[in-house]
């Protein structure tokens, strides 16, 4: 399994070629790329940052879970950090298996789960300013503790 966080360009062709082995009949891949706009606002570039060591551990965990859950043979997961221009790949996922059905399912699950649980954030730079992109709420098992606390904390302080 090739699990990587990199500061340079992602070598898409090399990652895809590397994930294949003789018993595989299918590779499904997902390529997340920097769009030229967010809700119509023109993007100049993005800046990705991560809690790097934790993100890498989370990515390893997801890859292992994908193999166990979907029965695929191999997974590659590469995320890039730093400044990315429009059109560049921020994340590349590739899944190999004998048959195609599970490669689609595992690849979709990996990108959906990665984007909710792996500690990576992006700041969007527009002509007229910059914002940290809104994230989705954490899955309840990761954030519930803090949410509950929020109510308790509020009572204490009022």
């Amino acid at each position: 399994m090739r699990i990587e966080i990199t500061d340079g360009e992602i070598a898409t062709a090399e990652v895809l070629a590397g994930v294949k082995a003789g018993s595989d009949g299918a590779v499904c891949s997902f390529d997340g790329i920097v769009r030229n706009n967010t809700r119509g606002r023109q993007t100049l570039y993005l800046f990705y940052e991560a809690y790097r060591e934790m993100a890498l551990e989370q990515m390893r965990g997801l890859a292992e879970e994908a193999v166990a859950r979907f029965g695929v043979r191999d997974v590659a997961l590469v995320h890039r950090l730093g400044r990315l221009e429009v059109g560049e790949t921020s994340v590349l996922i590739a899944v190999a298996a004998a048959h195609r059905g599970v490669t689609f399912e595992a690849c979709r699950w990996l990108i959906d789960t990665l984007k909710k649980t792996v500690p990576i954030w992006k700041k969007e730079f527009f002509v007229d300013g910059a914002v940290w992109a809104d994230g989705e709420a954490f899955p309840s098992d990761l954030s519930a503790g803090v949410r509950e606390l929020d109510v308790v904390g509020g009572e204490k302080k009022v």
Partner: protein
Amino acid sequence: MRVAVLYFGILKDLVAAERDALELPEGETVGGLVSRLRESASKQGEGLAGIWSSLAVAVNREYAPAETVLREGDEVALLPPVSGGRERAD
């Protein structure tokens, strides 16, 4: 006891720091620590209510619930909702 606190994403901008070292009473929990930080931020006029209630916390690089008891030397990271590439309707 002393713990390291790491800030990421919007929270890093908000508290204008990447990393803090905090002295805490023995037995302090993740939840207790977040309350302290939140209170201190709001005193400095940096309150951004939404962010504090949507955080996740990692202790030594693993997600940790509010009741987790902290120990000397722990690395506590405050994680705003992940935005590696949220889907949204344009």
